[in-house]
Structures are given as structure tokens and as C-alpha cells.
């Protein structure tokens, strides 16, 4: 029983984090058909903001809000630096500029901060544990679950019920048509980047809460997770991204519990093998998004 509960909590907390990561990526992809390689660096930015404000004596919650704000600012900045100038050109061009931008941010962190890990201030609650029906659980896992439920619900509400969300979904399904009907394209795209940055910021804080330090390359793993989750779930569908995130977390956690120590080092390879199998079965991912329209 204790084992089952622990397993479920592990899957849900990891899956929640993965789902948020994937969602942040798909929001951009859905509208622009473009992958944001600099997404992981938004997590890095959130982490370094926490580190840099660490000595200021501000209450932690203020630092967290600042970190989120910085992630949002850098999200919008990504749009202006890497996407807007080349948006109308080839897909490859944008992939490359966002890859270059990601490298730029990482190396800026190397140059101006440090290549070595930096400790990030975290409140007590991130290191406490509670016992639920015999299973010892870190509180941060429960926080992650709570945060992901709240945010997933909020994003679902935003997308379905508000003008902004409807405009975004319209832009995602047929960009040209949406523009003709008066949806301001640049504004919608910037807002999508802001939302993506916000999700990255939340994920960043939760993710760094697990590790406790921040390094310039910290964004790589979340980025990869988001990538794989979106490919499994279907690149264009928001529910698909969430399902992909939870499925990936389920695969990862199962492998964690079942693989021997020797094989555990290869976990990423096994996960990816499963992804290839899923893609053999369904090349478009599990859930198909809205019918494709022209981008820009």
C-alpha cells in the first residue's frame, strides 16, 4: 500500500512538472509551428534570478515572484530576438536562431556568472518530508502536484473561456483567418511567449527545488523532457502535451523502480526507445491537434 501511494505520488509530481514544461513549449508551437530551443534557458533565468536575489534579504516569496517575472521578460525577449525577425522565413531558420539564442544565454551565464553550480535560496518547506499512509514523501512533491493542478486548470480556463485564450486558439488553428478577423498577431504571439515564460518560471522554481543549485546547462533536461512529452502527446494539442508529460513521467518512474542499478544509467536511452515505438504506432503523436493552417 505504502509502495503504491509512493509510486502514485512520484508519478503525479514528476508528471505535473513534465506536463507544465510541455505545455509551455506547445503554446508557442501551436501558434507559430516553431520550436523554442531557448525554452530551457528560461528555467535557467528563473534559477539565476533566485541566486542573484539570494543575498538581498527579501522574503522568499518576493524572490520567487521576481524569478517568475524575469522568466516572463526573457520569454518575450526571446520572441523579439530570435523569432520575430525570421518568423516569416523558413522553419529551419527559426529553429537555428532559437538554438543560437539558447547558446547565447547559456554562454552569457558562463561568462558573467560562473560555470560552477550556484546554491539557490529555498524555503524550509522544500526540504521537509511528511508521512502519508506509511510512505515518506517530500513536501516539495506535494507542492509540485498542487501547483500543476492549479496551473493546468488555470490554463484550461484561460484557453476556453477568455477572449485571449480563444484568440490564441484561433491563431493556432488558422493564423491568417484569425488575423483577418481582427486578432492582433504580434500581440497574441508576445502574450503566448509571456505565458510560456511564466510556465517555465514555475517549472524552474519547482525543478531547482529538487536540485538546490543552478548551473548554465540546467535547462537541457527540462527542455528534453518537454520535447519528448510534446512529441508523444502530439505537437499541436494542449491536452496532448499534458498527457504526454504524465505518460513520460509514468515511464520514467516505472523504469526507476524496475531497472537494476547498472541499467538505470541508461534510463534516457530506454525512455527514448519507448518513444520511438510510440511514434512507429502513431507518427502524429497520441492526440491530433487542430487541422493545420498556414503560419504567420
Amino acid at each position, binding site marked *: 500500500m505504502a509502495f503504491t501511494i509512493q509510486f502514485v505520488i512520484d508519478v503525479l509530481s514528476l508528471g505535473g512538472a513534465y506536463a507544465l514544461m510541455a505545455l509551455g513549449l506547445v503554446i508557442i*508551437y501551436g501558434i507559430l*509551428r*516553431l*520550436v523554442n530551443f531557448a525554452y530551457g534557458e528560461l528555467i535557467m533565468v528563473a534559477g539565476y534570478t533566485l541566486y542573484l536575489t539570494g543575498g538581498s534579504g527579501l522574503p522568499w516569496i518576493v524572490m520567487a515572484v521576481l524569478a517568475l517575472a524575469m522568466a516572463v521578460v526573457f520569454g518575450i525577449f526571446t520572441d523579439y*530576438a*530570435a523569432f520575430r*525577425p*525570421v518568423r516569416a*522565413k*523558413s*522553419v*529551419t*531558420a*527559426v*529553429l*537555428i*536562431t532559437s*538554438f*543560437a*539564442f539558447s*547558446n*547565447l544565454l*547559456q*554562454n*552569457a551565464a*558562463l*561568462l558573467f556568472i560562473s*560555470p560552477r553550480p550556484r546554491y539557490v535560496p529555498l524555503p524550509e518547506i522544500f526540504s521537509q518530508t511528511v508521512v502519508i499512509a506509511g510512505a515518506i514523501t517530500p513536501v516539495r512533491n506535494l507542492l509540485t502536484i498542487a501547483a500543476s493542478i492549479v496551473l493546468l486548470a488555470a490554463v484550461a480556463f484561460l484557453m476556453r473561456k477568455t477572449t485571449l485564450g480563444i484568440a490564441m486558439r484561433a491563431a493556432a488553428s488558422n493564423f491568417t483567418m484569425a488575423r483577418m478577423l481582427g486578432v492582433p498577431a504580434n500581440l497574441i504571439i508576445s502574450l503566448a511567449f509571456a505565458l510560456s515564460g511564466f510556465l517555465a518560471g514555475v517549472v524552474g522554481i519547482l525543478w531547482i527545488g529538487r536540485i538546490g543549485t543552478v548551473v548554465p546547462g540546467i535547462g*537541457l533536461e527540462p527542455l*528534453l523532457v518537454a*520535447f*519528448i512529452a*510534446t*512529441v508523444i502527446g502530439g*505537437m499541436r494539442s494542449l491536452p496532448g502535451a499534458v498527457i504526454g508529460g504524465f505518460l513520460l513521467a509514468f515511464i520514467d518512474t516505472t523504469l526507476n523502480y524496475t531497472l537494476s542499478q547498472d541499467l538505470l*544509467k*541508461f534510463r*534516457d*536511452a530506454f525512455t*527514448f526507445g519507448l*518513444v*520511438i515505438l510510440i*511514434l*512507429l504506432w502513431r*507518427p502524429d*503523436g497520441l492526440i491530433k491537434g487542430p487541422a493545420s493552417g498556414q503560419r504567420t
Partner: protein
Amino acid sequence: MKPSHLTALVLLAVIVIIGVGSHLIGIRLYDRIATNLMISLVLVVGLQTFMGNSGLLSFAHIGFMGLGAYTSAVLTIPSQMKGMALPDLYPFLTAVEVSPLLAMVAGGLVAAAVAAAIAYPLMRLSDAAAVITSFALLVVLYTVMNNWSALTNGPRTLFGLPRTTDLPTAASVAVLAVIAALVFKESRTGKLLRASREDEVAAAALGANIPALRWRAFILAAFLAGVGGSLWGHFITSFSPKAFYLKETFLIVTMLVVGGANTVTGAVVGTVLITVAYEGLRGTESMLNATSFGAGQVIGLTEIVLALAMIAVMILKPGGIFPSREIGDILARLRARKETRS
């Protein structure tokens, strides 16, 4: 002369001039840089055969380079050194010791075989999903190299490869790679693949089996990457899996994209330009490090400048310096224009 022959002639002349030129100057540093350039050329031209013809960005290329380098290492490290260099090596491999040339071919074949085995399902994907999975593939290859201690000595540095790559060898392999890329581009597979790059639906409607075409190009690219990796391994003689990861991927993709991914000419020009820029920036960086006392190390400056250059090229000239025509076609057109005028 046919334009394609002219292209081959010009590109090979560039390689020979760089090779002979740096040899004549006789400074060892230049020799080193030129050899490095030739090896990069093999890798970038290899990437071009897939990316240029299929239009899909592949990040996994450097991973296949790693496979080639490690295959070659296992096959060529002298057997009396293997006990130290690879303590956990499988017994049946400890006695193996082949010539580096043979090992280079083997490195290419192993990379190609791995690519053939895992890449087919990935070739069914298009656009972003294809790019993302190739990125994931790079991570997987890196994970495997980092952890399969028996064959790679894990994350630790592997040493003891015989140093057999010199400038003439590297240049000859580069020449072969350029020829292979040009021939492939004009082959039936290459032409159909380029058709699919321009319009996937139309090409498929004409009967092109796109996944199979991409698969062939991917295998060729992996083969060239493996050869390049082996060449590099015998040049640098000691390396760790870190050498086959994002930083190098970034460098290679920059080279190809700045030059122009769609043309072999672009691959060659981009490699030369970025190598020169990279070495220049590296020099500046180490000079700054030597002069600024205690002000901290300058790291990452080179990459920042390269990233800015890449973004600038993408904004100004998204197809790179040679976006669609090979140098031979450009020269032939110039000549034709001159003739019609006179």
C-alpha cells in the same frame, strides 16, 4: 565543362590550396588548424548530405561522430595498452588491433549501421518533430557513450589512440567526402529527396517514398560522421564523451548554416569561415585570460560571438551565403551571360 564538374574542381582546389598553403608556411600551429579544418569539413559535408537534401535539421550528427571515434579507438589502441586505457573491455576485443585506415572505415560502418537500425521510424516525422527527435537521439547517444564503460571508459578520458591523422590524410578524406556529397546530390535518391524538401506532398504524389529516401541520406551522413570521428580521434588521441555533445553540435550546425545548408559549396565555405573566426576568437579569449590578472576567466565569449553571427546571418540571409546554387552553376551562368552579351 559541366557545372557540376566545375563545382567539384573549385571545391577540391580550395581544399588543396588550404592544405598545401599551410604546409608551405610551415608553422605547426597552422598545420594543426588546417587539419582540424579538414576534419570539420568531413563532418559538415556529411551533415549537408542529410540536412541539405532533406531540409530537416539533424542534431544527432555529432553523436555518430562519437560512435566512429570510439569504434576506431577500441579497434586501434595497442593491445598492451588496452589494459590501462579500457580496463573493463570485453575479452574478445582486447587482442584486436587493426590499422587505423581500416578502423576508420569500420568507424563509419558502425555509425551507419546504428543509424540504419534506429533512424527509420524517425524519418517518418517532419518539421519540428523530426528535429526534436534528432535532438533526443543526440542525448541518447551521449548517455550511452557516457555510461557504457566497457567500451568507452565511461565519462573518463580515453587515451592511447595512435596518432595517425596528419594533414594529407585528413585532406584526402575531405576530398572524398566532398565528392561523395556532390555525387549523392545529383543521384536519383538525392534529386527525389530535394524534390521532397521543396514540396513534400507533391513529391509523395509523384511516387517518392520519402521516409526511405531520407533514411538513405541519414545513413550516408552517419557514415561520413563516423569516418570524421575516427579521423578526429586519431588526431587528438585522447577524448571523453563530452567532446561529442552540444558545444560541438552548435559549432558544426553554425558552419553549415552560415555557409548555406542546401549546397556543398556552402558547407565548404561555412567551414572555412567559421574555423578562421573560431580560431581567431579563441586566440583573443586566451590572450584576455593571460593579460587580465585575477579578473576571472573569460569563458564562452567565442560562443557568444558565434551565436550572434548566426542570428545575424539568419536574419539577413536565411539560406546562408550559398543558398541554392553551387559555385559551378554560378560560374557557368556568369560565363553564359558574358557570351550572350558579346
